[in-house]
């Protein structure tokens, strides 16, 4: 099989540039295999994150030819081989070294979200039809590719005001949990900036778990925020009921 050139970002927080590495292709090779080849034979200190090599852990995210991808699930034979294949670190997070980025911001956002809290007096029976919808959200492997591609973070740097699609997915999973008893709509509106999302669906396009982030998580959450904050009729109804 032919050789291909990988054009990999080498650098750290301050600076860096791409370097070219030529590697032999093998059948079924994925980009992560190619990076490991470089590590083994050409640059022992090339920094890459990975764990499962099977699209299950969400460690190996990077941008391959400008597309945010899991490198362990991106087949080399799906990429044009006559030109160098460019591999850059995720753009929305600060680089630590080479392809490894500082994703700690995500863990900070996560901390703001109140965990599951059962409604009092539940008997712990749940039915598949109630659980189905939430199980889609629970598939998330925290690859942070959606966070990376979302223009609110990527281009507008709203890390302070915006939680990002990953955490809308997480909240959707909690809000729609059949036994959960806490409301996180105020948090969504006020602290996590759900309104900053303009539902342009890039998160859904990149999600390796094929979670319908926009249609099934974000838009239903937006509707719930409307229920709570923007719908005058519902407000009135709540007032009358409450009084």
């Amino acid at each position, binding site marked *: 099989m032919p050789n291909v050139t990988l054009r990999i*970002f080498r*650098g*750290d927080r*301050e*600076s*860096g*540039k*791409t370097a070219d590495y030529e590697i032999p292709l093998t059948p079924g090779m994925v980009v992560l295999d190619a990076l490991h080849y470089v590590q083994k034979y050409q640059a022992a200190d090339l920094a890459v994150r990975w764990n499962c090599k099977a699209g299950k852990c969400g460690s190996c995210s990077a*941008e391959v*030819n*400008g*597309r*945010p991808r899991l490198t362990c699930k991106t087949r080399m034979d799906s990429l*044009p081989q006559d*030109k160098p294949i*460019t591999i*850059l*670190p*995720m*753009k*929305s*997070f*600060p680089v630590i070294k080479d392809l490894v*980025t500082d994703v700690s911001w995500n863990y900070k956002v996560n901390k703001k979200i109140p965990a599951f809290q059962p409604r009092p007096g539940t008997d712990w029976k*749940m*039915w598949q*039809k*109630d659980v189905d919808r939430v199980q889609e959200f629970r598939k998330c492997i925290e690859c942070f590719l959606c966070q990376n*591609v979302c*223009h*609110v973070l*990527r*281009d507008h740097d*709203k890390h302070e005001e915006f939680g990002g699609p990953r955490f809308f997915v997480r909240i959707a999973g909690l*809000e729609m*949990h*059949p036994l*959960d008893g806490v409301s996180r709509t105020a948090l969504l509106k006020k602290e996590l*900036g759900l*309104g*900053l*999302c*303009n*539902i*342009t*669906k*890039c998160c859904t*396009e*990149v999600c390796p778990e094929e979670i319908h982030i*926009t*249609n099934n998580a974000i*838009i*239903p959450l*937006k*509707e*719930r*925020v*409307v229920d709570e904050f*923007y*719908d005058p009729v519902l407000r009135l109804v709540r007032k009358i009921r409450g009084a």
Partner: protein
Amino acid sequence: MASASQTAYQAARTGSWWTQVVPVVVILGGFGAYATWRAFEGAYFWAAPYLSPFYSPLIDIHHRYWPYSPALLILGGPLGFRATCYYYRKAYYRAFFLDPGACAVPERKRDYSGETRFPFILQNAHRYFMYVAIIFLAFLWHDAIGAFRFPDGFGIGVGTLVLLANVILLSLYFGSCHSLRHLLGGKLDCFSCSKFGGARHSTWKSLSFLNEHHMLFAWASLFSVGFADFYVRLVSSGAIRDLRIL
């Protein structure tokens, strides 16, 4: 944010991003221009038994209170429904505002506020337009059924089929609406614990199925509305004659 430069990311991305944007600009732009012209025209909207969907429901046709085209009185309903539709929002934010033009394509730096400030905060009113859309749909169904009633009794013309297809596509578009899906079931956390949970779950399931094709219905119904009006205009202005099938 990353230390690899913006240009490195720009250069890395293979394929051109505007291929997705151009069709949306052309079609939405074209439709907008046509619809505006037709709405102001105020003529050729009726060719018995067909009524152009742009003019339905027909109000104050004799200009007693409203001197301009009757379409302008009602246009706000369907326009608002589409303009605040979750799908169209995506389409025009991308195509007209380049917010973003396509995924992972660098965007202009500027003050961005998403849907948190005027005017886009008004998108939250989508459900109200959805309620209004029910009224319009009812009229359009009424018109489509009326399109079987020719001066000489029951009949079917090409126009009948055009109006019927249009109202079906519009109903699918309506039925796949996110706000509707939320209202009729999505807002529940636990179907099994709610009143009429079983029925609401199956409704929600069906609407979810339609919802997956919302984009398709959005475009298909846009074409059908435009075409239905165009057809009625052709017939009404005498440019062509409606073909009777039955």
